[in-house]
């Protein structure tokens, strides 16, 4: 049921959430960007540019302790957080990224390290007039517990799960026509340019020298992968303190030469050309084959991160142009 939230109601909702969850909300940095940070009271910044860092890092952090080993063969696992996290202010792309990682890490065999952080987490989405320039963000489906809707005349809230309903108890109902002023049409996740590029890749119509040209610009910084909400690759490292060893995992990047290099020296991704093709092919062709969905949610973070302008969108635009030229 749709609710109307006055400012005091919204603060009350935040308090309700913070009682049971570790609440993270979007806050504005001095450079104008927004980050998800622990709520310290006050109103979150619901509208604005996409969250600077990928929200999926709450469940799959850059560096994460997997377990501790001792000399006698003993293994100890880290404790789950005291309170599960609540992520507030996620748009449809953020939620699609979380849904993708959920499917990846929780499908059998379940990744218990991911589950430890993900279990019991609350997702609060945002839609309506919350875009960077006040544009309308599309409505949300069941991927969040509760949806905040920025309508022209105030904040509305719509629950999607039992937990969402419970959190909204007692707030004033809003007439459904409050939504009438908003464009509530769902949008396709992938923009046309990425769909086109995916088709060309699938049909093996991308000339080899295209990849060479693009790869020559890559400086192998890994930024595209580290910014990407659906990238899930990790390496493993040990650190030993006396008789105790901490085994952790940390984000890895398929754009780095050592990513697939084997101890024998054999390297199936031994050139930047192969690695650049893989980054795009994996998301646009391999992931749909494996998971039924592309591994790109079109959030644009890799384009903002890449210092040489070959993120997903820029690359796909060039790819489609090149193939058009070849085709004609």
């Amino acid at each position: 049921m749709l609710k109307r939230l006055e400012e005091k109601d919204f603060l009350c909702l935040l308090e309700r959430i913070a009682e049971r969850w570790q609440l993270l909300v979007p806050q504005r940095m001095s450079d104008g960007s927004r980050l998800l940070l622990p709520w310290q009271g006050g109103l979150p910044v619901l509208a604005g540019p996409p969250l600077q860092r990928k929200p999926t890092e709450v469940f799959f952090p850059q560096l994460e302790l997997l377990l501790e080993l001792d000399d006698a063969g003993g293994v100890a696992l880290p404790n789950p957080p005291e309170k599960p996290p609540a992520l507030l202010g996620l748009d449809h792309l953020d939620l699609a990224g979380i849904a993708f990682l959920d499917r990846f890490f929780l499908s059998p065999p379940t990744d218990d390290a991911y589950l430890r952080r993900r279990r019991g987490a609350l997702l609060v989405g945002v839609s309506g007039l919350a875009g960077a320039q006040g544009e309308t963000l599309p409505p949300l489906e069941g991927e969040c517990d509760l949806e905040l809707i920025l309508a022209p005349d105030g904040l509305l809230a719509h629950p999607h799960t039992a937990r969402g309903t419970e959190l909204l108890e007692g707030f004033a109902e809003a007439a459904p026509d409050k939504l009438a002023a908003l464009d509530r049409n769902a949008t396709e996740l992938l923009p046309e340019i990425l769909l086109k590029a995916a088709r060309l890749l699938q049909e093996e119509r991308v000339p080899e020298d295209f990849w060479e040209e693009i790869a020559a610009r890559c400086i192998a910084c890994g930024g595209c992968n580290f910014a990407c909400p659906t990238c899930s690759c990790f390496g493993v490292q040990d650190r030993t303190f006396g008789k105790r060893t901490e085994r952790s995992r940390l984000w890895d990047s398929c754009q780095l030469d050592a990513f697939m290099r084997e101890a024998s020296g054999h390297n199936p991704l031994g050139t930047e050309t192969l690695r650049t093709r893989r980054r795009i092919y994996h998301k646009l062709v391999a992931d749909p084959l494996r998971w039924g969905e592309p591994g790109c949610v079109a959030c644009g973070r890799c384009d903002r991160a890449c210092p040489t302008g070959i993120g997903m969108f820029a690359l796909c635009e060039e790819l489609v142009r090149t193939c058009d030229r070849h085709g004609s």
Partner: protein
Amino acid sequence: MTAPASLYAPRPCRLLTVSGLTPQEKLFRLQLVDGSSLGHQPGQFIQLSIPGLTEAPISVANSPTRGTVFELAVRRAGRLTGALHKLAPGALIGIRGPFGRPFQLDALRGKQLLLIAGGCGLAPLRSLIQYCQDRPEEFAAVHILYGARSPADLLFKDDLAAWQRSERLDCRYTVDRIPADSCYDGETGLLPRLLSQLELDPANCSAVLVGPPPMYRPVIAELRRLGLSGERRIMLSLERQMRCGVGKCGHCSIEHLTCCSDGPVFWLEEVEALRGAL
């Protein structure tokens, strides 16, 4: 402390014996500390864990038909395998697994088998060879073809001799080159040469290949020439960098496949068209 339920938690194993195979390779016999059997099938691997040095994927080199002790043949390649080579019997190490898709025994039963190994590839194949020895009624004939770089690099020399003596097995091996001071008087030349010596019934024959990457294409070409065409005739085991062994870390992907869990054993037709697979 009881072992917690985690994909990433190694189980403690006791190192029972260590024996030298070549100057670079040793055979390690191990048993789980709780006495249980590993529960592997030929072709599967484990993640070997040494605190401080993370983990490495290693194939199980003996057959599950041989009891609860399991064997690993390990080449000294770097930090972890180097540390393993220094361990003495009695040491504790960790393992996870067994992992991966094993050799598809159902598809091999009743067939004339070509078991083809290059270099370290004999380790996983030895598990299948022992299985064939212990279940002779399941297979029509078993040919073992093995290639190593030099006589000193031949793995499992005692096994090779015993397999050659065995009436049930046909075992042939070759080396790429013989150093001047060697008293080796066996075959030389590359693996495909051994194949051309065989009398095959191509309609009832299946091949299993495990070896270094440069081995696959020439051997496959020779098998095709001998008449092994069509689906489910050639099975191969691929190596990749592996960090997790359970399909999560991404290091072993081959296009849309994941070598550690979709493989490491594949039918040729599953991977042949995939970029970078062979």
